[in-house]
């Protein structure tokens, strides 16, 4: 039974979609699956979802956190734990041998044997899905021992080595432990493990989310190649729609436990039917399209009234970073060696301008931010505020912090759960003498909360962090940074932990604040597209050095440095949908010929 049969009307029966389905045989069918979380009150995480996965197909499952996509995937393999409860529905696995297996009817030993042999999984936590206390080899052997008890040890070893080779990891790494492997290698090992029994279905839950774009691209390519070779079907779950558009055959968009749209990748991109799909697509700024077209879309209220900013607009000055160097001591065993995290970085922040610092994790961009915020001491180099060397202690440091403030990446960790929003703002206002008297302080808190669009401000001030969403928390964190009257804002990946649909709104808020308050903003990110749209200048960092800098459009549209080109090529781009698949197919055809 296919999804089209249960839902004859609506976007699911587009002619092109029907044409796509012709000639395909189903491998996994979910019918009317509902999953509840039995808490008080019960949460209906998945509502009557019907979905068919076909042999050899990559089916993308897109949606934001909490939409039920992971819950659905866990349900397909019966991995749900209380309080999650599969309330109703049926899941059928159509085996190669022709027998149909009722997955929900399996239990005990029969379920255990079914898992991994027919459906294997790759989880999001590349870092955490390997057992830290036993070697990669033993974890691979565990799979063989339980499912292929007759396999001789020699063959197990040969198979394990072959698996690692297939995913592009040196077979000598078999004896390694998880902590000895890089993030990308761990995820490759996980994929090797998932392949071990040649399953017919692989469920991948955000398998590349924690990885850098270049590594991510490598892994995706590997998945595509292996899929071509072994013909397994993939359910690929992610919030990253551009990525899905590039690799999937079909995409299902989930919203609040329901699939609101299901279509081939090309059609979903060209002719999105559902309002939510359109909004999701619009949340990803294009790398190559019109610059600025995305600004203004997310924030409510459009551009603010600019009349009261005259006095702030006259602000001048600069924050200059000169030849900043940071060395860290790395201890390995009994020896310690130096590691240069930041290598002679220089740039200038000016009021009213946004500079983006772009790079992968470990490139040193966060260290730069921490040094500017005076949380880390530079090994050498200077930070000049208005041409004066900045202080590192005492009253002078306090004055420096009046002017330079930071917004951190993790809105959940950067607010103290014990204190109200009002308290978080009151402290900097008092410490930096921004207002006096109870009423003065309260008025200032209200002004700040209005500024970051937290309405109604009075009510918001009394809430505690756990009562706020991630986006609201990040707004509080921004208000807190503005509270001392900062002229320069250091924003370290301010939106990377937020849901995609609110990211643009958040960035638009930063853009608005920057205009209203005439701020100088350092926007640190790994996302080239938003860097392009929201900054005037881009600096690309690689291994501690700035390898390329220039006006944002020039850097993105006409990159000079090899590394910038690599980064750009690896970034998912919805306009390239289907390209990766064609590339891989061509590559394999060449190899076979």
């Amino acid at each position: 039974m296919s999804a089209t049969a249960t839902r004859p009307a609506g976007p699911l029966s587009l002619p092109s979609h029907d044409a796509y389905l012709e000639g395909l045989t189903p491998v996994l069918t979910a019918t009317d699956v509902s999953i509840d979380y039995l808490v008080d009150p019960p949460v209906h995480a998945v509502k009557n979802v019907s979905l068919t996965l076909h042999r050899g197909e990559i089916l993308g499952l897109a949606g934001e956190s909490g939409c039920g996509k992971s819950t659905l995937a866990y349900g397909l393999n019966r991995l749900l734990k209380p309080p999650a409860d599969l309330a109703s529905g049926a899941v059928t696995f159509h085996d190669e041998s022709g027998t149909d297996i009722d997955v929900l009817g399996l239990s005990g030993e029969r379920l255990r044997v079914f898992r991994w042999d027919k459906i294997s999984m790759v989880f999001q936590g590349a870092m955490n899905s390997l057992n830290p206390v036993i070697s990669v080899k033993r974890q691979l052997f565990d799979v063989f021992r339980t499912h292929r008890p007759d396999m001789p040890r020699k063959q197990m070893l040969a198979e394990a080595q072959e698996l690692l080779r297939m995913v592009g990891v040196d077979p000598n790494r078999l004896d390694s432990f998880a902590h000895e492997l890089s993030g990308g290698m761990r995820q490759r090992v996980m994929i090797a493990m998932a392949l071990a029994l040649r399953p017919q279905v692989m469920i991948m839950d955000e398998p590349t989310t924690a990885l850098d774009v270049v590594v991510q691209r490598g892994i995706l390519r590997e998945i595509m190649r292996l899929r071509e070779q072994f013909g397994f079907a993939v359910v690929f779950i992610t919030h990253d729609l551009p990525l899905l558009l590039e690799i999937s055959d079909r995409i299902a968009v989930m919203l609040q436990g329901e699939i609101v749209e299901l279509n081939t990748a090309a059609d979903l991109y060209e002719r999105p039917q559902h309002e939510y799909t359109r909004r999701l697509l619009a949340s990803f700024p294009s790398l190559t399209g019109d610059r600025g077209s995305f600004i203004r879309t997310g924030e409510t209220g459009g551009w603010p009234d600019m009349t009261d900013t005259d006095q702030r607009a006259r602000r001048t000055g600069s924050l200059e970073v000169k030849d900043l160097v940071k060395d860290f001591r790395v201890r390995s065993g009994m020896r310690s060696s130096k590691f240069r995290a930041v290598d002679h970085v220089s740039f200038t922040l000016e009021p009213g301008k946004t500079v983006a610092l772009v790079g992968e994790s470990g490139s040193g961009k966060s260290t730069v931010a921490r040094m500017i915020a005076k949380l880390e001491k530079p090994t050498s180099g200077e930070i000049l505020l208005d041409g004066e060397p900045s202080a590192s202690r005492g009253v002078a440091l306090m004055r420096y912090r009046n002017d330079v403030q930071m917004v951190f990446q993790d809105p959940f960790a950067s607010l103290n759960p014990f204190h109200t929003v009002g308290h978080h703002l009151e402290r900097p206002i008092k410490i930096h003498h921004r207002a006096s008297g109870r009423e003065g302080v309260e008025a200032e808190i209200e002004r700040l909360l209005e500024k970051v669009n937290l309405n109604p401000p009075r009510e918001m001030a009394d809430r505690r962090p756990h009562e706020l969403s991630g986006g609201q928390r990040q707004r509080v964190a921004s208000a807190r940074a503005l509270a001392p009257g900062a002229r320069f804002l250091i924003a370290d990946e301010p939106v990377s932990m937020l849901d995609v649909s609110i990211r643009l709104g958040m960035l638009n808020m930063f853009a608005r604040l920057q205009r209203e308050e005439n701020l100088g903003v350092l926007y640190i990110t790994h996302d080239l597209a938003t860097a392009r749209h929201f900054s005037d200048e881009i600096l690309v960092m690689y291994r501690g050095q700035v390898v390329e800098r220039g006006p944002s459009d020039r850097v993105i549209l006409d990159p000079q440095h090899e590394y910038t080109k690599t980064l750009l090529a690896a970034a998912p781009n919805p306009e390239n949908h289907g390209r990766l698949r064609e590339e891989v197919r061509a590559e394999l055809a060449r190899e076979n010929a």
Partner: protein
Amino acid sequence: MKYYGRRVAFYAVTLWAAVSLNFFIPRMLPGDPAQILLGKLARNGDVTPAVQKNVELILGGSHEPLWNQYWAYLDNIVHGNLGISVSKYPEPVWDLIKDALPWTLCLVGSATIIAFAIGIVGGAWIGWKRGSAWDHVIPFTAFLQSVPYFWLAILLVYFLGMKAGLAPISWGWDVQTYDHPEWTWASMVDVFQHAVLPALTIILSAVGGWLVGMRNMMVSTLAEDYIVTAEAKGLRPRRVLWVYAVRNAALPSFAGFAVALAFVVSGSLVMEQVFSYPGIGKLLITAVSNADYALMQGCSCSRRSPCSS
């Protein structure tokens, strides 16, 4: 090399500090054995200077400056000479400790290991079956842990020892039958029986901590991705439990176990007093109540050295 040098220097300083404290603290305690005895003698009549000199010589009261005494003490320690006990005159302190230490080490050491093992295995099981009736074991053991040590011991003596007569209630062996424990089957059984109640006290009061720690670590470990992966891999539940969950969850407990082992010798004081067990704790109590400096110093040294290593 630099690393080991630093560690050795650290331990040397720690040992010196411990040894010095052993010397000074008893001398700050009120009461001087020679003065006490002289006071008693004075009540019965005059004390001649000769008697006074003799008493002071025997009981170690010294008019030497404290500094000189300290040097003499350090010199003796280096040469393994801990002095002569006053309360059990003329036994050398070293011999007394040599007799008492094995009792404590065997009893408290094995009780600690048993408590740890029960805690790890039980905690792993309760954590694995979280939400089941097994969870109710936890508050009960926590209660046992919060009961004062000596009170628990007295309860055991009364109910298991005296009422039920399940086990002997004092001493390390049957002193009426044997002068010393012997290497005979009957004597070893006898020694074992005498150890049952003291060991049970220690196990009951220690197991709760291990149990609760292990259970909580199990619960948080079971939420880890590699556990879900192991289950998705279709491994047998037994293997997931022992190789994937317990091995990771037990790591903090093992760190705590190392610390607990260091306290084996020092944790025995109250228990040995209640059961009149011939261990190092009882020896120390004897020494303190008789102001026997040499014995006190000797006991404290042997109690502190495992802690500082």
